[in-house]
């Protein structure tokens, strides 16, 4: 991975009226990674993805995909030639049938993989003659994924790809995704509220809050470096002993990003009776960042 990252942004900004939906966002997504984009509703995930695919134009700042600028109209079209976007609502134009939408899409993508398309039609149980308007939300999700994965793209930008899917179908979709990632070098950036899924298939995690990146790291790194440390004191814990610590009676607990030993030593020196060090889930890390954002 000594190549340029597929996505690079520098102080990217998107302002609607008085509101900065994206507010100085700096992000890098390395080639070949599957990166989960986490954030609360309204944090800017969808806007960010739309800026990458050219549906929305940035107000200021720099953004490059495959080295192409997202603020230049001609380059945006070039980006779309190698990228696929799945929107949150997964709607399709008009009264077209599944077959017609596929026919429509493949006309724009010479690298279309009919073998993959056929395989996904089977796995996802989609019938060519169904009208898009008659598909259930789950089926539309699967169709959107099919169209994204069969077009021979180098980058997939997915907005809640498995939202509303039952666990079995969601697993199938994830399976198709990782299978594709195993076959060819493809980069995936997917926004999701399903933290468990992100933990399952992502190798990188990016968290955004209020239009800024608050965390961007490899998932393994996060898992191995974050720890929850809990102290019990004889009486009330010392005031303001640690930043972002939660107090509960005589207990003080906090999430430690690195070197829990230092924290443990400090707590012990402050008179802690007992110390517990435990691993944390991605959800814990996420919630912690959402609460303590603004660093």
């Amino acid at each position, binding site marked *: 991975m000594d190549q340029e990252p597929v996505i690079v942004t520098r102080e990217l900004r998107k302002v*609607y009226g008085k509101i900065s939906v994206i507010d100085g966002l700096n992000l890098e997504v390395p080639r070949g990674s599957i990166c989960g984009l986490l954030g609360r509703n309204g944090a800017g995930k969808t806007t960010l993805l*739309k800026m990458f*695919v*050219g*549906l*929305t*134009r940035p107000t200021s700042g720099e953004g490059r995909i495959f080295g192409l600028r997202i603020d230049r*109209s001609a380059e945006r*079209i*070039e980006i*779309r*030639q190698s990228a*696929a*976007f799945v*929107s949150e*609502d997964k*709607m*399709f*134009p*008009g009264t*077209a049938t599944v077959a*017609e*939408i596929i026919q*429509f*899409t493949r*006309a*724009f*993508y*010479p690298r279309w993989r009919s073998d993959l398309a056929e395989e996904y039609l089977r796995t996802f149980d989609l019938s060519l003659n169904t009208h898009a308007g008659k598909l259930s939300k789950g089926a539309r999700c699967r169709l959107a994924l099919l169209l994204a994965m069969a077009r021979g793209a180098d980058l997939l930008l997915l907005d809640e790809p498995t939202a509303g899917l039952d666990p079995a179908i969601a697993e199938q979709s994830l399976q198709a995704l990782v299978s594709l990632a195993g076959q060819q070098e493809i980069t995936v950036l997917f926004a999701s509220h399903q933290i468990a899924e992100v933990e399952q298939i992502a190798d990188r995690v990016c968290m955004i809050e209020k239009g800024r990146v608050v965390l961007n790291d490899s998932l393994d790194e996060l898992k191995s470096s974050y720890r929850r440390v809990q102290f019990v004191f004889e009486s009330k814990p010392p005031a303001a002993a640690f930043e972002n610590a939660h107090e509960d009676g005589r207990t003080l607990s906090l999430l430690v990003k690195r070197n829990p030993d230092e924290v443990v030593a400090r707590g012990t020196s402050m008179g802690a009776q007992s110390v517990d060090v435990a691993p944390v889930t991605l959800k814990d890390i996420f919630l912690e960042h959402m609460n303590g954002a603004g660093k």
Partner: protein
Amino acid sequence: MSPSNTMVWYKAWTDTRRYFRLGAMILIAMVVGMYMSYPGEPDKEFPHGAIALSVEQVRSLPHDARSYIWLHWFGNTLVVWLPFLAVALASAGMPPPGGAAASGAIYTLSMPVSRRKLASVRIVLGIIEMAVAALVSSLLVCAAAPLVGQAFSVRESLVHALLAIAGIVSFYGVLVFLSTTVGELHKAVLGAALLFLYGMLTFLANGFRRFSMLRLMTGDMYFLRGEIPWGGICASVGVALVMVWLSLLIIERRDY
């Protein structure tokens, strides 16, 4: 043409073909209807008026087949139905964001094609479809005239059909602009309101008649004096170009 270009045109066609077919069929049926109700003695059953023409003008016409057909077809029927076809067809395919229509459009917008191309093709195809419907039905007027023992000049029919098209494009342009800014909802209401507005303009004081789009479409100058209303044509086409240009501008800058 590259596969992607072909597909852009094909998509525009699939989006509009049902309106085109319906419009063309209605116009053809109108031609048939006109001849089926053709009076045995045109002299006695001559129409009393036409849209965009003054009563005096109509009274001054000779009561012959040529006038009858012109009044009936170019003076009334075509001029009433083309605007409806324009309402049905006028769209850049790019509704404003936030509506249900926009959600469907987002997929198309995420294709590696410029918005300008997508919109322009759709707009141009609409005009082509209106033109074909107008031309085919107007030529049918000539072809079917002998069935009632009459004749209507092909050249005249073509010129009138082209004038009708030249006139309708300004209306079409305004509708494209509206569908871009306001959206596709209540197309019919929009169209009817505008039609009414245009219609009203023709019945206002004489001073306004010169600017009536409907009058341009009727082509009375050519019918009565063989004069081509170049001024009117330029004005109408000019309005259409400005409206379309504005629409494209808005479409290109929009955030979805």
